[in-house]
């Protein structure tokens, strides 16, 4: 098992390396010169441009630029933001909390709602309420979260006009105000995930409930609730956990759009701003970080998988 985990870890490092190379190349292929963007469109003095390009290291060959960057990253130095002159790691550190809170709350809401909804649909399959919930969940899967976000905004404006639901207050400063202002973004980002996960749970539960051991359990006279939650659900959780890992990445990525819609000062907006400004050090570090998160989450999912399913330990 240790060997399997090490192999997995190796794959992860390889993915992270690949993404770092791709990111590095892609942002340099985007038209627009970082130095020119920093100077502003009006300042066309070639001397200033050359000095700035040299400062940013943009006059070096690409391979040298990449080598230099990755060498520093491996030593914990992500460079300084071209725009503010602050260490990139501090800039990201100041923003990542927002995105993490959004993602974690979104995931929490998704799990809390999706499991009961999925079980309910499976237990009552082919009934009217199953169809109703399934239609809702298909709607949830198809609706893009930014559109849902706008809809929530208009809804809140109509039904709760006097309530401060917009803005960002750090949790440490005022927990209640923080939670109140994050209700809408979390709802917008979580609902499509709830819908997707509920469908996964339903499908897995329907399969599990048709298994022999469930019939046996029922034959022994165990109550229906116990059959559903103890016997069937435990097996149904395996595909659910896999989907959860993918969805965590989806939530993290979806926060880019949601932060834009709700004007939250998170990592997503930082990245969009950095791309607009061609702020190379910041883009590279932020994308590397996002990749690392995605990769680590998947690694954790693998671990959880092993914990749930004894068969996986043998592999």
């Amino acid at each position: 098992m240790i060997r399997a985990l090490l192999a997995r870890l190796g794959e992860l490092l390889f993915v992270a390396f690949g993404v770092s190379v791709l990111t590095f190349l892609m942002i340099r292929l985007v038209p627009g010169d970082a130095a020119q963007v920093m100077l502003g469109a009006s300042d066309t003095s070639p001397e200033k441009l050359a000095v700035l390009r040299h400062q940013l290291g943009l006059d070096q060959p690409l391979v040298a630029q990449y080598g230099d960057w990755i060498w520093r990253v491996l030593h914990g130095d992500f460079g300084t933001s071209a725009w503010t002159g602050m260490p990139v790691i501090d800039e990201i550190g100041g923003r990542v909390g927002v995105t993490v809170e959004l993602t974690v709350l979104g995931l929490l809401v998704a799990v809390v709602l999706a499991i009961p909804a999925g079980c309910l649909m499976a237990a009552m399959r082919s009934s009217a309420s199953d169809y109703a919930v399934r239609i809702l969940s298909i709607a949830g899967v198809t609706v893009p979260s930014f559109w849902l976000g706008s809809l929530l905004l208009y809804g809140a404006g109509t039904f709760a006009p006097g309530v401060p639901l917009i803005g960002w207050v750090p949790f440490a400063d005022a927990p209640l105000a923080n939670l109140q202002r994050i209700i809408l973004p979390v709802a917008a980002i979580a609902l499509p995930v709830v819908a997707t996960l509920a469908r996964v749970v339903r499908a897995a539960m329907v399969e599990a409930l048709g298994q022999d051991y469930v019939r046996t359990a029922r034959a022994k006279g165990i109550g229906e609730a116990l059959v559903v939650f103890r016997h069937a659900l435990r097996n149904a959780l395996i595909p659910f956990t896999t989907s959860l890992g993918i969805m965590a990445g989806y939530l993290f990525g979806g926060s880019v759009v949601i932060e834009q819609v709700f004007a939250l000062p998170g990592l997503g907006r930082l990245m969009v701003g950095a791309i607009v400004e061609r702020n190379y050090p910041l883009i590279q570090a932020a994308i590397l970080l996002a990749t690392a998160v995605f990769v680590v989450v998947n690694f954790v999912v693998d671990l959880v998988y092993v914990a749930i399913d004894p068969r996986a330990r043998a592999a």
Partner: protein
Amino acid sequence: MSVRTGRLAVAALILALPIAARAQTLELATDQSPVGLDPQVATAFSTALIDSNIYEGLTAIDKDLRVIPALAASWTIAPDGLTYDFTLRDVKFHNGRAMTPDDIIKNIDRVRDPKTASPYGSRFTGIKSMEATGPHTLRVVLSAPAAPLLAQLASLAIVAPEAFAELGRKPVGTGPFRFQQWVPDTYIALDRNPGYWDQGLPKLAGLKFDIVPESATRELGITGGTYQMLPVVDASAAATLQGKPGVRILQTQDLAYSLVGFNASRAPFGKPEVREAANMAIDRSQIVQAVYFGRAAPGGPLSPALKEWALPVSDFPCYATDPAAARKKLQDAGVTLPVKLTLNVLGSLQVVVDIAQVVQAQLNKAGFDVQLNVQEQGKFIQDWRASNFEGFVSLNGGGPDPDDYFGRTFATGGATNVFKYSNPDLDKLLAAAREERDTAKRKQLYDQAQKMLACTGPVATIAYATLFAAERDNVQGFAPMPTRSLRYLRETTLAK
């Protein structure tokens, strides 16, 4: 969790008291980041919105578009109209250094320097010499009398010369608020300038401009009280916000206007007849209804806000929409129909994108074949500056003084004459008007200029919007301005 406790929990969250706003800092939400904060180079509205709080000129324009003293406490003009003597106030820059007459000279020199590429440069080329005649006095001598000089000086933000190199991101001025922090695409924070020359001002502890791209978010933000002011609100949002508890809508007439700009140096708009045909094809009242929801006025080359100067649109024959006549005009001009062309569209402003679509349909009815090229702001400005377009749809800032505005926009070689328009007759008119100090005679000259520009000029002026702003009902002392300057924030207070 039972349904009941669930409801209680939600109610508890919603009832949670809004956190007390940090003492007297006004939080504003605006739709886009400034393109840079150098007030002498960047002319975008998004820049002026912030800079109008950090910088001042020797003079200022008040909300009735009159010239009033600012950094210059007073001035005298010699009878020949050539020599201006300014007495400067005792003012400190935000970095603590006292402002001297030499600083003003350095600012004017920087703006005039072609290397600065300032759109305001041409306003000050008529200055022959400048001299510090005392610790607080400055003499400016012109090569020819120029009536609009005092109004133009209001547009020249005085910056600390030692900060020239980094103005785009670290502004240092003399204004009521000091630059504090810019978190890209998130917010810009300003704090009170404790050494501001106007005793007792500003009254607020600071300003925070949140960058909030989504209109619905700004609206919910002000109805919920997160933001105390939306300095720019479009017509549809103003209609939504009207009557919401706790929100007040303010309005004024815009000096800026929506336009279709033509490149007069290349086909197809190189021919005046094609420009005139486009004017005849465009139905301005339809655009006012469809895009501005009626909250705008079709206008000619000058804003209706300039009551003493602007001619009514009924004076311009090409404003009577007639697609058939437009088509005939094109045929008579000898161009092949349909006239294919591409319009660049400033994509960051929804109103512009909407106008472009209506204009496209209207032009296509009159024998044009229009492609729209909706561009990101940076790219649009780059092409605009380089005259790299056949035509474009955008918003353009007007000015409180016709000479200044006409001169830089339409005179041959004017600083923002990106149209490459050159009309010797117009140049002569503008030169004559510039030296004319008799207001009635000046007005006659500008009437002629307006008629000359309205139909065959390089711009089809569409409409001057009613400008809306929204504020919470505890905001006091603010007034919106036709120039979009936020000058009155210095007198604004927040009631508890």
